[in-house]
């Protein structure tokens, strides 16, 4: 049962991303939105956690929220897919459920 998890808070602000990757089952997708996009950047204290989680989970990040924060796609952890809002909708359709980690 594939599930889409959305995380909208920075891993440096709250534990939402950590909780999400700890509890999401293998094969799930994680979409980082709003301040959650900082979890997609490499070379941070959170990037090891995300890189490890990517063995079991597919990671996506909302491109417009990257742009709004001046984060270049070159700063993303390799293997994270950038999507737009239509991609967000498609992820919600393709997964059976959507869980927001607030």
């Amino acid at each position, binding site marked *: 049962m594939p599930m889409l998890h959305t995380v909208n808070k920075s891993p440096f602000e709250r534990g939402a991303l950590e909780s999400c990757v700890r509890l999401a089952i293998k094969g799930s997708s994680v979409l980082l939105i709003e301040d959650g996009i900082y979890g997609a950047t490499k070379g941070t204290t959170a990037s090891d956690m995300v890189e490890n989680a990517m063995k079991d989970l597919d990671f996506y990040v909302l491109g417009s929220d990257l742009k709004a924060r001046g984060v270049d796609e070159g700063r993303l952890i390799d293997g994270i897919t950038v999507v737009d*809002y*239509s991609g967000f*909708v498609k992820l*919600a*359709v393709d997964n059976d459920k959507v869980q927001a980690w*607030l």
Partner: protein
Amino acid sequence: MKFGIQINEGPYTHEASTTALNFVSAAIEAGHEIFRVFFYHDGVNNGTRYTTPPQDDRNIVNAWSELAEKHDIDLVVCVAAAQRRGIVDEGEQERNGKDGNNIAPGFRISGLGQLIEAGIQSDRLVVFGD
């Protein structure tokens, strides 16, 4: 596909209401149906027409009203959350003896059952919040 949307955050708190607006617009664009948008907790603050941001700022309340009118979307404000935060329609004004009301066009006040129904009737319930 039918989408139910829940919004738990006010229009100018962080970004959730804007994200939800963009998601709803993209879903409609892709041919999906929005069964209902349910405003809960501080999200009820999206439903007051007295919101007056500076003219060069986004008017998120108006954006919801306009989107609802254009696409016939049901915007429901949780009654208990609304009472706490002073969001009032004509019925609530009369029931609670208030001297006015402030509900924005396209919004209506109702109960939590509307969220449960949205969860049952929609293929996906997507939550935006704080």
